[in-house]
């Protein structure tokens, strides 16, 4: 059921991109940095962007889950994108933000090194991910936007936060251990 809807929604996004490129529509994105790379997600999926706040650790949750926060009375999980992408931990800086997104009625926050800007890009400059990076572990990369001076990695949030992947990661994690 879930995989089906997910597949469906990615299809939708893909077809949305196709359609957009055909009509050469504008994509509205929020861009942010994690490590050396610049990423972007659709602005409509972003609920809010917060400064760093007190995160409560949840023992026995997947390693990339930083913990939970109190978002005005609602408890939501916060993902450390650095850990999710397998990067080294960052010394706490003032630029760190929690981006809160809603995916399929699930509210999740994730930390990024800094938030850059809200930008509009023409969908025609978005290309599918290069074959080399497209593997089972990186299929959350939905496309690459070529800007004049830089590359923007478009993330598929529902792929990034699917339950199946967690299970997979955990599984491989526990096997390794």
């Amino acid at each position: 059921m879930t995989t089906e809807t997910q597949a469906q929604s990615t299809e939708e996004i893909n077809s949305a991109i196709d359609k957009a490129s055909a009509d050469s529509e504008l994509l509205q994105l929020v861009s942010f940095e994690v490590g050396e790379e610049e990423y972007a997600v659709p602005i409509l999926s972003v609920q809010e962007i917060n400064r760093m706040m007190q995160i409560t650790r949840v023992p026995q949750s997947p390693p990339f889950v930083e913990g939970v926060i109190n978002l005005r009375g609602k408890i939501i999980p916060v993902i450390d994108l650095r850990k999710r992408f397998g990067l080294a931990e960052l010394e706490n800086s003032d630029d760190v933000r929690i981006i809160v997104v809603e995916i399929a009625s699930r509210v999740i926050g994730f930390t990024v090194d800094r938030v850059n800007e809200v930008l509009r890009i023409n969908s025609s400059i978005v290309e599918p991910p290069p074959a080399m990076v497209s593997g089972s572990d990186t299929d959350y990369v939905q496309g690459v936007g070529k800007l004049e001076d830089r590359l923007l990695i478009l993330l598929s949030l529902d792929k990034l936060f699917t339950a199946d992947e967690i299970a997979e990661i955990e599984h491989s994690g526990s096997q390794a251990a």
Partner: protein
Amino acid sequence: MDPSLLQDFLTESGELIEQLDTDLVRLEAADSSEEAQELCNGCFRALHTIKGAASFLGLTAVTTFAHAAEDALNKLRKGEIDVTEEVMDALLQSADIVKGMIDELSAGEEAQDGPQGLIETLHALAEGKTQEAGATSTPDTSSENAAAPEPEADDTTQPDDTDKPGTPLSLGPQKLDLLEFMVTDLKDASKNIGDTVDGLCNDATLEESATFLVEVCDEMEKTAEFFELDELTSLIKVLTTVSGKLNEASHETIEEIAIRIKAAKVLIDQQAEALNDLRALSWPLETFCSRLTKLAEDGSIDPQVKGQHNGDVQALLVLDGVIEAQAEVASTAQTQETLSSSAETSAVSSQATEAKQTDDAEESKAVGEPEKETEKAGARAQAKPVAEQTIRVEVSRLESLLNLVGQLVLNKNRVLALTRNIKDQAIPAEMAEDFSDAAGDLDHLMSELQVSVMRTRMQPLAKLFDRYPRVIRDMARMTDKKINLEIVGKDTEVDKSVLEQLADPLVHILRNSSDHGVEMPDIRKKAGKEETGTIRLEAEHQGSHVRVAITDDGNGLDRGVLGNKAVEKGLTTPEKLEQLADEDVFAFIFAAGFSTAQQVSDLSGRGVGMDVVRTNINKLNGTINIFSKKGQGTTIEILIPLTVAIMPAMVVGVGDHVYSIPLQSIVEIVRPEPEEVKSVSGHPVMKLRDIVLPLVDMRERLNEPPIEDGGRFAVVVAIGGQRVGLCVDRLVGQQEIVIKPLDDTYTQGGPFSGATIQEDGEVCLILDVIQLIRNNAPTSNSESKAAA
């Protein structure tokens, strides 16, 4: 159609159907004919009410079907057909179908027509053909009835054998049978008139009231035809006509008409009372009717009568020659027995007095005056009827109220924390004391508010339990067993959410008990038991918990069979199995996919049900225990906290973090000396008085680095007889916590039942004591747990 009217109908009918369902099952099992008769009447009344309301709202599918079922039930009621399983099957199915229609309507869909086959069966029953009836009934009658566009009229104007004399009412026996219901309808309609008529005198509500009046009168006309009383029918016909013309009438005329409508209402009420006693009253109504008609037509009125009644209903009736003299008035007034109608009468006369005064004043004063007076009288009249005992409130409103209370509790906690800190600040002592007093009061009031709000969400378990006789009945029918369900303590109240979560588990357990527990009659007989098996469902409060137990006197659980199956499924090893207590072996039935049934049937055997039971009960922070003796039966006992949203908890510190433990599961807190902690086959234990208490190192369970020093606390928790000590570093204090779900897939793995928000706004996790106890034994489990 007015959506709020539909909503009312759906809510009410939903409840009626549930009642109907229960009563039908009870009817089948009824011992005495009086009891059966009463239940029959109850069922009939429920169907009749649904039918009436549905026809009012123009829901033809519901009306037609309810009508067919009503006819069949009527036969049963009169004892012309017997209570057989076939009959009851048809009736119960009908209840299901009507329920389905109501569900469809609730979902905003059109109700589908009921299955024609069942309608035909019902018609066949109504015609007294019980056995060979089936789906092949006489097509002419069924189609005639099913096609009847206005079934209400259908059952009021049946011409057959109505001319038989013998009663003062000269109604056929079939009609006499329905008399009670029709009288109720008549009274209801009359009450509606009384409620509406005041609205006529106010310009703002005139149009609405007039329209409604026409509807009510129209409906009442049909009811009246039933009684075959020309006078009554023509009186109501006049009312209908008059109501239709109200919009065009002048203000003054309307007041004259309104008083006459009230008079007519009084007459109808009296007639209804009389009809109830199988008497028919008769009045010379010609003058009254003709004057009323004339009034409505051109607003003209005989100058001799105008205003002569002084706004008094009785005086008016005398004036129009309907009743005579004073003595008569007194005696008719006495026939108004019911509370409401007498309240109405006094309201009417009080308003009449007011009206008289305004009449006098009208010549000299402004036009706004009489309206004001009428309103005053209206308010007075409203204050008089018996106050409503209950009101319906949307669940969402209660939820948001509870949510607010939850936030308030957190806020109060924060204020209390501030109060504790204030003493350290440079603040005048007096002020600090005042502050602390105020905070104390706030604390006190909050707890009361909390209790009151929680109480609004409490519902009796009867809401669930009343459904189960049907479940058991169907089970018994399908398996050819004889099962008797005993229900004890259904008045026990629990939180609404608890009630909802309990519904499915109980059905599964009951199905299990009847399918696997209770044996076939012949086997029971051989075993020296009564042929009819008994399943006992009981509920009671135990402290802050509710205990629900399901006991059957069936076959009992077989430790050997269960154990072998558990080993086969890899749930345990033969060696471990030997050491397990009976209860622990029985608990394997809750594992997913665990079923000892040889065959998967429609009823059970897939091994899913008991898993649902465990999951739901866990969600409620509850526990399940199984007691069973082979050959003698099984008891499944469920213990759940009364409420789930707000509860007191002990906040403890482990490492740098704090966690909450629900106070209700804490037995005591001890401080073991390091030398008291022993190890039994690798597991830490301590001797607590005369028992050996297993310990759980919370540092280990919560992935904190181990420490050496022994100055720690053991929080002793108990669930269903099992006790363990949770070793924590610090005790922070007791607090009211508001439970928030921690249900995201990312945060589900750990031993937590939820989270709460602390005084400083930080999140604090709530420890799931059940999970901690259950996973205590094998230590290797804790690592693999997260992956599973």
